[in-house]
């Protein structure tokens, strides 16, 4: 799509949308949001960029193949699930929580890292599928 307006806007929107997706991810434990929605928003941001500027541009911007985000996300999620076994000896997926509140974010716990894992997997999966399909047809 060769629209100058879309091109310009997408370049400004991309960082904003990613920032928004991170915001949605972090607030998930207290207010509507979470890793799944956050990941989808981030994926949409990149896809918008790809629509406006062409897929090669977006790939250049990403540097790595989005597929690599999937194992990264899965690893984070698994580690956060295993953390209680390793750190405190509790069963799998027991929530571990920091004592003090962190400003803005609230309490930080293993659930947040799990959500981050979900976020990365979702971004990776969406982008991999859509990039692969758009390259192949």
């Amino acid at each position, binding site marked *: 799509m060769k629209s100058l307006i879309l091109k310009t806007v997408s370049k400004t929107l991309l960082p904003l949308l990613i920032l928004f997706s991170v915001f949605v991810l972090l607030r998930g*434990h207290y207010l509507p949001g*979470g890793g799944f929605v956050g990941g989808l928003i981030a994926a949409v941001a990149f896809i918008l960029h790809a629509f406006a500027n062409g897929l090669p541009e977006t790939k250049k911007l990403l540097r790595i193949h989005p597929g690599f985000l999937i194992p990264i996300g899965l690893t984070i999620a698994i580690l956060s699930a295993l953390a209680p076994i390793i750190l405190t000896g509790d069963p799998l997926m027991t929530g571990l929580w920091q004592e003090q509140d962190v400003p803005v974010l609230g309490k930080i716990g293993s659930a947040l890292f799990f959500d981050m894992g979900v976020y990365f997997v*979702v971004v990776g999966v969406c982008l991999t599928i*859509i990039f692969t*399909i*758009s390259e192949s*047809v």
Partner: protein
Amino acid sequence: MTVFLFVILASFLFSLLLFGMGQKVFKRMTWFASLLPISLFLYFSSFAKPIMNGEVFNFFTAWVPSMSINLDFRLDNLALLFTLLITGVGSIVFLYTTQYMKGHPKLMRFYVFLSIFMGAMLGLVTSNNIITLFIFWELTSISSFFLIGFNNTESSSRKSAIIALSITGLGGLALLAFGVLAGQLTGTYSIAEMLQSPEIFANHEYTVYLLIFIFLAAFTKSAQFPFHFWLPGAMKAPTPVSTYLHSATMVKAGIYLLLRFTPHFQNNSYFFTTLLIVGAITMLYAAFQTLFKTDLKGILAYSTIGALGIMVFLIGIGTSASITAAIVFIVVHALYKASLFLVTGTIDHQAGTRDITKLGGLRKVLMPLSIAGLIAAFSSGGFPPTVGFIGKDLIYEATLNGGLNPTVLTTMAVLTNILMVFAGLLVGVKPFTGKQPVELGRIKKPHFLLWFMPMILAALSLLFGLFPAMVESLFTHNITPLLTGEASPHLAIWHGFNLIILLSAITIAGGIALYFLWKPSHKKESSMIKFNVWSPKSLALKFADLFQRLSYFLTRTFQNGYLRRYVLIILVLLTLVFGVHVFVNPRIFLSVKEIKELNWNEIVILAMMLVSVIFTVFTKSRLSAIAGMGVLGYTMCLIFVFYGAPDLAMTQFSIDTLTVILFVLVLYRLPKYLKLSNRTNRVRDGIIATSFGTFLAFTIIEIMNETPIKSTTEYYAENAYILAKGKNVVNVILVDFRGFDTMIEISVLAISAIGVFALLKLHLKKHEK
């Protein structure tokens, strides 16, 4: 405690180590693999002394305590007997194989499977937890599958492997059913603790199921009639495998199971009667079959089935004497049968044939081997002074003194044993005597290990025969607790002149006479083929074939690969379910008052929905249909927003966007609709879609009228902050309460992404397609 756990797992770790070495490194140091069984044998031997004194060792590690699945091992005399057999025969087979399969390109793989099998077998006989017993049981079936199909380029090997796996796998399922049922009824999954509820095993409304399941498990594994046919097929495996798995150890797992549960069932007469009948049929049938075989391994296979039949038969008699006889016979049989198998292997290796009609006169070249064969044959036939003689004595003692009808039982035992004498002589003596046929050509002398290993086993047969006290103190001394309140008989080679000696003499004389009078030939073998139509094997294969055709039919009908067919089937089925429900049990109330309370914004959304649906259905362009679907999705999101489900709305919104993008990407380049599906199809689809929607709506209205059960909702709402420190209940459920589900869901997502990537990026060349 942890040491024992390590010992059980050692074989599995060892197989990984072998795997890591790779074929090339392994080929240069094949002896290395034998270290495993030898060191395990030494380890288990160290328990011999205290266990002879009546000690029992327990090793307990909690594994999944919430489901009563624990790494609970128990080493008593029965378990020790089996561990020594497994590691002892294992050592010999491991060493033998280094020469027998020397230079085989996949030798490393062979040892990997063999090690896994040994570990599984050791775990099986030491498990005190019925569920871990089941796991190890299945592992033996699986490793046996790989070993039978080791020559995987031959279709007959693969077929035999599949038959063996399906039969033993069926038994494995039965064992699981038995374990779970027994565990639920007695309230414990520990085999030893189950003994405290004897009434469950003796007389309970579910006892009959326990019996059926345990019989199915034991009879399939130990090749009892009518499940015996997988064992002759399993002879497709290399001879060391037949020696180890299919005569000395794995097939005895069923016997082990029966012996292990004999104390539990000791007040249940059905248990013993069934074993008696099945064992008798098996031993007579299999022993009779040996007359008609010409392949040495075929003869050994049927005589093994016969021996297993004798063991089951002896347990079935159900006296202390008969149980002792069964246990001694396990040792006797393992020694002579493994020896005969190895002798056969060496003959095959040197002469290149196993056909009994073509073999003869090998004693000149294979002198030491012929001695091993002779002793093993003598032990098989129960000639004094081999241990086989003692075994046979005990069998007759058991049949004469026990059971309902001693005359019948003894006659059956004598008949079987005469045929076993014949089979033993045929395999152990016939190839070495007479004149060497010219076709055999020059036969090279075998490697030292190829005759020395069967010789060790044969020598043990002789040694135990001369000093029966060794067997007694090692194995049968404390076995009596299997049946409470009866003393086991003493083993001796000479009890004086009595009926038993007479029977032994008759057996030996009969066997020798048969050996000289009956010459096996291919003509006799093929004369039996006409009965094969009614053999359990061909019936089972016919059933399997039928099953396969049914599966093909079902797959072709329901999984034909067209997305539209799948959607159609799903919708029709759901429509039927909802429709029947609505007609049978109509409970639909719509209050007019509530409809009147519609807001203007709801009315607008509804209108938008209707318009987009109509547009989607009637548009002539793909892309606009997709856009219509997108609008419909967004209006749904608006409903979620108005009714307080912001999380859902956000997710649905993003998903809808992505779906539309995806469709556009795929369909963008396609031409416009070339032709619509024909009128009948469209009418049909329309009717199905409309009725599905209607009935779904009815069902939803009905659900709305039900008072919802609030307990789950309330639990999450109350505990989200207390337990998981989150205020957004939806998210807390996703990442905490049901986090494990999410974990699996993201794994599925990852797999699907890899699938899409692999499918589309797989640029196969023409010849690869």
